[in-house]
């Protein structure tokens, strides 16, 4: 029996049938959960609510089962399933067979649905005995989202769609740029971020429906919001690293529309994480917080639309499909629903206090919010303008990198300054005396550091120099916060400095975890500013024995070498790297020819040398002409890019400290104050 026929009979037909049936079941379950939870909310029927919760969890189990079936189909080369045929081949290494699940439009929607049903199940479990008034409506809102994505995965873009006609013996192969280890983590991290923002949105809507607009819903979703925000941040950094090592243009962020699609909700989420503290502390910005939660979720949907509709030209985007219009309709429903509820409940969202002074922490957070939102809007305009231009004038305009870079400087530098000012300024109002006490050392350090850097020759870029000075300012404020806090802790409890620091952080994880995240921002800014403002680039045509110079390094071309992988052949140029006469190493930038694609498919495989001084020597083989025995080499010297990846690790650490649950915190606070206050009560 021919192998392919055997595959279809033993695997293809079964997997596709069971997979499709599972997805139909998911659609039925989430539809039931939505209706049942609405009825449970209206009738206050606890059994109906439990049944809806069970349906959500069953939907998650079925979705995971569908994912497992699709993975089996991918690993078994079951080309009778269309996505397996279109995105894999027999020689594709197994890890990429597994990650190719989200290389396709239907597969990525299945991943969305999996994360969404998983998040909804977790919310259901977390709130079994909490938030009983809110939970039916939370489940209903999440259920509405799940119904939409389950409909997409069953009706519009099924991952189990069969291959039309005769099933070929081999697949078409995976896109070369997706054959990178970072693709294993980058899309799932982004999806975790996008999807998890549905949870705070659902709680906000439930709070409006049930009139429980106090700060309790904020507390219920604090960790979810942080998790979503951190996942999106990590996803973007992984994507930046993937672009740096895989795409082969020398950079890590190209203001690609789909990169922007992830940045926009992250900026709105950052604004929300700050403004929510103002509501908790001062009972202000209640309307603003609902608007921000809605904007963040809506921008997540918009980002999904940008990636999946095919309306933008991007390395990340999928082909044009009916998924795009469906997502736009869903986005419109989300916005209309949230706006109606917000207007309806506006009288319940009055502020408890007014802004007493512009020199206060709440005012700082407000400025921070305005800058973050303005930057998100500028990016949105940059993404949407070409689409509007094409729709209205029939001509597609482009918004280029200088546009984004201008606003990055214009909004980014004040934001960086606020990162340092916010933690040091008091709530309500700050007096001149306290301002002098808290800011003198950070300001003096920043001024002295800036002057020193200018003397060292970094004055060639004023945004770069300003960014470095502000980074010193922020670093000193963070250092002082830890030092003063630990000192105060030692004065109270004694003990060593390390013990005092651990105590300090564990007693207020949110505050000090936030400071660690601020430190990650500093590292990120230094990495971006240094690599953007002080890098070098050169391109040359070289014959064997010839050299080129770039940023103080000499690259000598000594010949070609060829290597063969499971589904490719690499043709690499051998470049000896030296600096000041001493050899530093050898780089092999290559062009990779894929042998498993029906049409000629190549990719650039860059080679990078990481210097101990934090400098990257980045080489790209732009072309090779064997007849003339010459190669075209593009080389870049990128200082301090490694700080960007280090920032990612520090970011994860800070986010983990902040998110880590501490059930003792509320009890410790109650113990500390209840006895003393009982007398006053």
């Amino acid at each position, binding site marked *: 029996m021919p192998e392919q026929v055997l595959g279809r009979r033993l695997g293809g037909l079964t997997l596709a049938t069971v997979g499709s049936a599972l997805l139909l079941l998911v659609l039925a379950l989430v539809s039931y959960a939505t209706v049942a939870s609405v009825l449970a909310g209206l009738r206050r029927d606890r059994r109906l609510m*439990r*049944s809806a919760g069970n349906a959500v969890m069953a939907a998650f189990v079925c979705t995971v089962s569908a994912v497992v079936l699709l993975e089996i189909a991918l690993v078994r080369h079951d080309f009778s399933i269309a996505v397996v045929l279109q995105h894999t081949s027999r020689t594709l290494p197994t890890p990429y067979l597994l990650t190719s699940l989200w290389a396709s439009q239907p597969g990525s929607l299945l991943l969305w649905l999996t994360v969404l049903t998983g998040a909804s199940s977790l919310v259901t479990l977390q709130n079994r005995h909490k938030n009983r008034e809110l939970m039916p409506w939370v489940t209903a809102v999440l259920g509405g989202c799940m119904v939409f994505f389950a409909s997409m995965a069953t009706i519009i873009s099924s991952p189990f769609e069969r291959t039309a006609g005769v099933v070929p013996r081999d697949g078409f192969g995976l896109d070369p740029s997706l054959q990178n280890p970072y693709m294993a983590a980058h899309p799932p991290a982004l999806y975790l971020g996008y999807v998890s923002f549905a949870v705070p949105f659902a709680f906000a809507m439930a709070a409006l429906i049930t009139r429980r607009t106090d700060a309790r819903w904020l507390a219920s979703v604090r960790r979810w919001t942080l998790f979503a925000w951190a996942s999106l941040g990590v996803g973007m950094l992984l994507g930046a690293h993937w672009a740096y090592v895989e795409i082969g243009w020398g950079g890590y962020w190209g203001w690609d529309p789909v990169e922007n699609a992830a940045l926009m909700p992250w900026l709105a989420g950052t604004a929300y994480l700050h403004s929510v503290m103002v509501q908790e502390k001062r009972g202000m910005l209640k309307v603003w917080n609902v608007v921000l939660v809605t904007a963040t979720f809506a921008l997540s949907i918009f980002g999904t639309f940008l990636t999946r509709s095919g309306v933008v030209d991007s390395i990340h985007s999928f082909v044009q499909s009916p998924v795009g219009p469906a997502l736009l309709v869903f986005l419109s429903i989300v916005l209309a629903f949230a706006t109606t509820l917000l207007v309806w409940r506006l009288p319940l969202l009055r502020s408890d206090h007014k802004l007493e002074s512009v020199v206060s922490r709440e005012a700082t957070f407000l400025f921070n919010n305005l800058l973050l939102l303005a930057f998100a809007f500028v990016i949105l305009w940059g993404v949407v303008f070409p689409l509007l231009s094409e729709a209205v004038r029939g001509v597609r305009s482009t918004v280029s990198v200088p546009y984004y870079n201008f606003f990055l400087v214009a909004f980014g530098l004040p934001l960086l300054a606020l990162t340092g000012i916010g933690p040091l300024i008091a709530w309500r109002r700050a007096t001149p005396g*306290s301002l002098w006490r808290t800011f003198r050392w950070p300001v003096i350090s920043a001024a002295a550091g800036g002057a020193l850097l200018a003397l060292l020759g970094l004055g060639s870029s004023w945004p770069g120099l300003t960014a470095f000075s502000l980074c010193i300012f922020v670093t000193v404020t963070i250092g002082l916060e830890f030092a003063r806090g630990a000192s*105060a802790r030692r004065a109270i409890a004694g003990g060593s400095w390390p013990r005092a620091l651990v105590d300090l952080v564990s007693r*207020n994880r949110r505050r000090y975890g936030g400071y660690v995240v601020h430190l990650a921002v500093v590292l990120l800014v230094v990495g971006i500013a240094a690599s953007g403002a002080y890098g070098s680039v050169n391109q040359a045509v070289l014959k064997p024995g010839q050299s080129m110079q770039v940023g103080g390094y000499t690259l000598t071309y000594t010949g070609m070498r060829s290597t063969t992988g499971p589904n490719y052949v690499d043709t690499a140029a051998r470049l000896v790297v030296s600096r000041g006469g001493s050899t530093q190493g050898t780089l092999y930038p290559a062009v990779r020819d894929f042998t498993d694609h029906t049409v000629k498919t190549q990719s650039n495989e860059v080679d990078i040398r990481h210097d101990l001084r934090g400098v990257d020597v980045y080489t790209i083989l732009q072309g090779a002409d064997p007849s003339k025995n010459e190669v075209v080499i593009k080389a870049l010297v990128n200082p301090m890019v490694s700080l960007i990846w280090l920032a990612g690790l520090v970011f994860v650490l800070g986010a983990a400290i902040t998110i880590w649950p501490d059930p003792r915190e509320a009890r410790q606070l109650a113990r500390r104050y209840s006895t003393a206050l009982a007398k*006053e009560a």
Partner: protein
Amino acid sequence: MSTAIEAAVVAVIVATVVVAVAWPFLSPERGAPEPALSPRERSRLELMERRDAAYAGLRDLEQDHRTGKVGDEDYQSERRRLRAEAAGALRGLDTLDSEPGTSSPEE
């Protein structure tokens, strides 16, 4: 694997799911419909929220005072305000607790 086995697998999955979803109605634990939160329970939740916010505010205020961000005068006045806020909330909770038939819905 034949079509009959495929159908059987799908049927088993569907049956399991239906039982899971229907279980709250089948299980012996059949509670009455949950009553809405009474005004008193709502008051209690609001008081607990005010109390917790005041506690957290006091902790942060003390930290800000110790680290020099808040001057003595502002510290004293804000401390008085927050303590009064917490004391008021505790007083309210005591009053509610002393009334018969009060439960703590979401401590």
